[in-house]
C-alpha cells in the first residue's frame, strides 16, 4: 500500500468504531473474504461487512439469479449462506486474522431469530459490530420485510440491542415513504446507527419469452442506477436525525462517489456491486479518496461528513 501523506487523515469514527478509512464492503458482495484476498490486501478496507448469515443454512434461490439492467443489476440470491454456526467455525477465524474490523450481518424471519442470532454472535472474538439486515427484498413474503414498518423495525432491533452490547447498525430499505421515520425507530430501539440503503425491489422481463429474467420473478436493484436514491436517502436521514452514524450504500464505485455519499451525511461508505464489475474497485477508491483530499486541500475525510451545501439559489 502507498503511504498516506502527512496531514491527510482518512480515518473516520462510526459511533464507537474507529475505521482507518471510510470505505467498507457492502454485505453480500464479498463472500467469505478469501475470494477477494486473491486480488488485494484486505487491510486496505475500513471494515468488512459480511454476507448475511441466518440461524440455519439456506440453499438460496434457483438460477437465474441475476439480470444486468441499465447501469445496474437485479439479484435474487435468497440469502444463500452456511448458517451462523458454520460461518463462525469456517469463515470468521480467517476474517478475524485480517487486521480489519468485521461487521457481521445477520438476517432473520422472526424477531426471535434476530434475538437468537445476536445471542450467538455476542462475545464471539473477532466481531466489531452487527449489521441487522431487516430489508432483504428477496424473501417470499414482503410482510416480513421488517424495515418497511417502524414498529417491526423497532421490534427486530430491540431484540438485538437488548441481547448484545456490540454496536448495531440497522440496514434499511429505500422502498418506503419515510425512511427517516424508520431510521428514527431503529435508533430509538437502541441501534448505534443505520446502513442506508439496501437494494430496491425490481423486475425485468424477457419480452421474447414473456417471462421474468429472474427465476424468483423479482429481485434487488443495485449499481450506479441507484446511487441518486442512496444519496437522497442518506441525506434525508441526516437532515431529520442530525449527525448519527450512517453507512451509506448504493452504487458507489469511485472516490468521487464515496465523497458524494459522505457529503450527504454518511460516516462510512460501502462499495458492493462495483466489486462485481472490477475486483480492484475498492482499493482504487481508497487510493482515489486520498488523492481527492490532496487535490482539494482537505485534511480529513471526517470533515466532509454532511458537508453538502444548500441548493443554488435562483
Amino acid at each position, binding site marked *: 500500500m502507498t503511504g498516506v501523506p502527512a496531514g491527510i487523515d482518512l480515518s473516520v469514527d462510526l459511533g464507537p468504531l474507529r475505521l482507518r478509512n471510510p470505505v467498507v464492503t457492502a454485505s*453480500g*458482495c*464479498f*463472500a*467469505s473474504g*478469501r*475470494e*477477494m*484476498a*486473491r*486480488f488485494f490486501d484486505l487491510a486496505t478496507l475500513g471494515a468488512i461487512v459480511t454476507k448475511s448469515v441466518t440461524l440455519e443454512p439456506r*440453499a*438460496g434461490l*434457483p*438460477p*437465474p*439469479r*441475476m439480470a*444486468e439492467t*441499465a*447501469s*445496474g*443489476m437485479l*439479484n435474487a*440470491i435468497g440469502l*444463500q449462506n452456511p448458517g451462523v454456526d458454520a460461518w463462525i467455525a469456517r469463515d470468521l477465524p480467517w476474517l478475524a486474522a485480517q487486521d480489519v474490523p468485521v461487521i457481521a450481518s445477520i438476517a432473520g424471519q422472526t424477531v426471535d431469530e434476530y434475538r437468537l442470532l445476536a445471542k450467538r454472535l455476542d462475545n464471539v472474538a473477532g466481531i466489531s459490530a452487527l449489521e441487522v439486515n431487516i430489508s432483504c427484498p428477496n424473501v417470499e413474503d414482503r410482510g416480513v420485510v421488517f424495515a418497511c414498518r417502524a414498529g417491526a423495525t423497532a421490534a427486530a432491533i430491540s431484540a438485538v440491542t437488548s441481547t448484545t452490547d456490540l454496536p448495531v447498525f440497522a440496514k434499511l430499505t429505500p422502498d418506503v415513504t419515510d425512511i427517516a421515520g424508520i431510521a428514527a425507530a431503529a435508533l430509538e430501539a437502541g441501534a448505534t446507527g443505520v446502513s442506508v440503503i439496501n437494494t430496491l425491489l425490481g423486475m425485468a422481463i424477457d419480452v421474447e419469452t414473456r417471462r421474468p429474467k429472474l427465476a424468483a420473478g423479482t429481485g434487488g436493484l443495485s*449499481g*450506479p442506477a441507484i446511487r441518486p436514491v442512496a444519496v437522497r436517502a442518506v441525506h434525508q436521514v441526516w437532515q431529520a436525525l442530525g449527525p448519527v452514524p450512517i453507512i451509506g450504500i448504493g452504487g458507489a464505485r469511485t472516490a468521487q462517489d464515496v465523497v458524494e455519499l459522505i457529503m450527504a451525511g454518511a460516516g462510512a461508505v460501502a462499495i458492493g*456491486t462495483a*466489486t*462485481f*464489475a*472490477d*475486483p*480492484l474497485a475498492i482499493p482504487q477508491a481508497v487510493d482515489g479518496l486520498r488523492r481527492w483530499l490532496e487535490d482539494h486541500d482537505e485534511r480529513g475525510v471526517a470533515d466532509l461528513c454532511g458537508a453538502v451545501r444548500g441548493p443554488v439559489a435562483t
Partner: protein
Amino acid sequence: MTATATATVRSTTATLVGRRRAAAYHVCSFSAPDIVAAATPGQFVSVSVGAPGTLLRRPFAVAGVDVAAGILDLVIAVVGEGTAWLVGQPVSTVLAMTGPLGRGFVMPVTSARCVLVGGGYGVAALEWLGQLLVSRGHVVELLSGAATVRALYPVSRLDTGTASVIETTEDGSRGHAGLVTDVLDERLTGDDTAVFACGPMPMLAAVARIAAGRGRPCQVAVEEHMGCSVGVCMTCVVPTTDGYTRACIDGPVMDASRIAWDHVRGGSS
C-alpha cells in the same frame, strides 16, 4: 479450500492483437502474458466491455494460448450488447481482464482414450485440451456438434493424423445428422475411456447420463450466467449433490457425477 483454486489469478489489462471470423463466431486474440502463463484448458477470463449502460464483465473460456507470444484466444458468439461491442473493437484496444479463473480440466494420469464432446463454440476449449492430451500420448477423439453447419466450430489446430474429429449437425448440413450425443455411446466401450465435455447444459446432461451408463469418468465445463466471475456474487450456481455451488470457483469444470442434473434447467431426461 476452494477459494485458492486459482491462486495465480491476475486482475490486469489485455491488448486486442487480432480478430478473425470462424463460422458464426468471432475469435479475438489478446496479449495477456501473465494470464497465458497460468491458464489451463477449461479455465476462463472475464473481460470489461464498454457498451453504454453495461456494468459487468463478460466471461469467456480460454480457447487456446500461444505461450511464447503471451497471447490467448477467446471465441465469442454475439448474444447481446456486451458481446456485440466486444467484437466491434479495433486491434490495439486495451481492456481490463481478470484470469485465469476457475478450475480447468484434470488431465488423466495414466494412458487413456479421451473422448471430447463439444457443442457449438464449446469445441474451441476442447481443441486446446485435445492438443495437450495428444502431446502427452493420449488417444483423442473429438465429437463436435451443432444445430447447423454455420454453428459448427471449425477445428483447425488439432492434428487429424493423431486425433480423429467427428462432426454432427441436427439438420444434417454437415457430418452425421442428429445430436452429438447420438454418436457418443458407441465410443465409450473401452475400460480406459474418459469423457470431457463443453457445451450447453442440456447437452452436458445427456453426455453425463451416457458416460454414467457406461461407467466412464466424465468431466464437464458447466455453463451458467455469471455476475462477478470471481466468487463473490453467488449468481452462477449449479445444483450439486451438496447444494448450490459456484461455477466460477468450484467449476467451470466439474466431475459430472457431482451435479444434480435433474435440478439443472433443461437437464432432466
